[in-house]
């Protein structure tokens, strides 16, 4: 087996995550898509760390995890706040970014 299989797997997972972000309307599921994309990159990092024999990739994956955790905390807090005021978790209900 080639080690690149891991990378291909990461790419596929990343694409699925991105598609989730584009297609789903529930903010929480969209968020899960983002998490999936992050995890896919982590897999790539770990694979490349192994490929190059360099631990830095793993370190970076570690940092991604921490940042992702922070991001989840804040993001979910925002979703909760929005849900509390608008009674909806659909991203399409929030179009204040309109130009």
């Amino acid at each position, binding site marked *: 087996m080639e080690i690149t299989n891991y990378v291909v797997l990461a790419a596929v997972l990343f694409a699925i995550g991105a598609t989730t972000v*584009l297609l789903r309307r529930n903010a929480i599921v969209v968020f899960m898509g983002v998490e999936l994309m992050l995890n896919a990159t982590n897999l790539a990092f770990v694979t490349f760390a192994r490929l190059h024999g360099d631990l830095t990739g793993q370190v970076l994956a570690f940092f991604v995890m921490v940042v992702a955790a922070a991001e989840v905390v804040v993001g979910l807090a925002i979703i909760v706040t929005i849900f509390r005021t608008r009674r909806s978790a659909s991203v*399409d209900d929030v179009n*204040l*970014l*309109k130009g």
Partner: protein
Amino acid sequence: MNDVIGLAPWLIGFPLIGAAVLLLGGRATDRWGHWLGVLASGAAAVVGFILLFRMIGTPAEERAVDHSLGTWLSAGGLDVDLGLRLDPLSMTFVVLVTFVGTLIHIYSVAYMDHDVDRRRFFAYLNLFVAAMLTLVLADSYLLLFVGWEGVGVASYLLIGFWDTGRPTARENAVAAKKAFVMNRVGDMGLIAAMAILFATVGSVGFADVLPAAGGLSEGTATAVGLCLLLAACGKSAQFPLQAWLGDAMAGPTPVSALIHAATMVTAGVYLMVRSGPILEAAPTAQLVVVVVGAVTLLFGAVVGTAKDDIKKALAASTMSQIGYMMLAAGLGPAGYAFAIFHLLTHGFFKAGLFLGAGAVMHAMGDQTDMRRFGGLSRFLPITWITMGLGWLAILGIPPFSGYWSKDGIIEAAFIPVDGQPWRAWVFGTVAVVGAAITAFYMTRLFFMTFGGRRPRWTENQHPHEGSPLMWWPLVFLGVGSAGLGLVLGIGGTFTTWLEPVVGHAEHHEPVLPVPVIIGATLVLVLLGAALAFRMYAVQLVPEEAPRGSFLTRAARRDLYQDAANETLVVLPAHGIARLVQVGDRDVVDRGWGVLPLAVSWFGAMFRKVQTGYVRSYAAGMAGGVLVIALVAWLVVRLGAGLGGAQ
């Protein structure tokens, strides 16, 4: 001469100071302002006579003196002094302006007695005298132009003197504006002439330009001559810029006498005579001057026969008489002296006629329609006699003054120029016919006013002579009308007097013997006068104007000059102006408006991309990544391909 030359600036100074005091002093000077005006004008007259007598006392060749007060304007090669040129020509004018001017000042004290704005009137009169003297005393075209415009603005102010508070106020103001604007049309000519002279000779001073005139190419001289003629036409109400003079009668009558008869309107003739050397270098321009003079001469005379308004009839007469002068000025040295001579005598008799008309109007409660006069000789004897003298003078009956000057012009017109007898015949005939028509309309005016047994007055009119302040000037002018020509004309005194300025005229024989010309003229004049006497003194004059022939109706309407101006100039000009206005709004302004519109249109277009939906934005970003990847790939491929090709 040089010991009194220092007085010369005071000729202009006295009236200018008078005008300044009266204008700035305001209502505080109301009580004595008119006497200050008379004093200023009188002082100028005294200075004028002192200078005149000193000039007569000096030998002929030393009479022309240039007196400079220092530099006025000096820049880029143009040096103009505040310089005065005193010579027989300008002194003639000085005496005419100050003497007649002072008489009219005195007359006005009484004439304007009841006007609340009498002080302002005298301020303007003084301003006019100062400007007129600047015009004639200037030693350069530029300084002449200062006076030229100065008399224009004084004329504007005086024509529109009654521009508020009267039923005709708006018409008066319009007449004033018309006069100024038409004068300005002429002024363009003077500006252009100065520009050409500066470009060719490098100066606008008489001392530089006139001697150099002979060296100008004929084309340049013609251009300058025609430009000067345009200026003269505007100022002297010559065809085709004559339309303003009739309307200018809206001003008080002393104004008409001083400005629109005796002095300002003759400035064009002065300009022509002063610029004689330039005209002589341009035969074409000379011919045009003669033609303009001849046309105006007949034009004014024809219009004069039909006017019922006494002032407008006199205005038409003025136009016609200036036509004579202009004709003479175009004849070269032979005519110059007679042009100025006629100008001088005309100044006296026409001022007298206008002041007489003023006296009649004063007596008849500002009535100007001659059909409502009649039989006034018994009630206004002094006016009758003095106007009678003026009437005889303008008819050219010997030995009254008009005979000496006008006959000289007619004779000069019959002299062939450059061996072209047709010109002599044409212009001579025109001059003689004009004299006959003049006799007709002046006799008509005189008898419609004074003759007839049955007065045609409106009710409640009790004509009587005005105060001595009014009739003494009439007497002076009447005496001048009667005797001036005899004094100056006999033996060619005046011609000799002007010779140092205008040059000596070689004597040429007219195409007809002189006695024949004189005889024929007199016969035609008497015929014209007799016809008028029969129609307006023997027969009854209807109170309402009859419809009249086509020619009469046309003459009443100034031979449709206003209509022609309206259709030929005003309407097209207004059309162009409308076009420019619409163009500015709809093309220029809106054209610039397109830029911001385009910007906001683009904004509106790209605004639609911003739906506000997060997922759209996310799709945009992801799509952008794809596009970038694609472009990067293409670039790499292309780069590789090129690299491979090399």
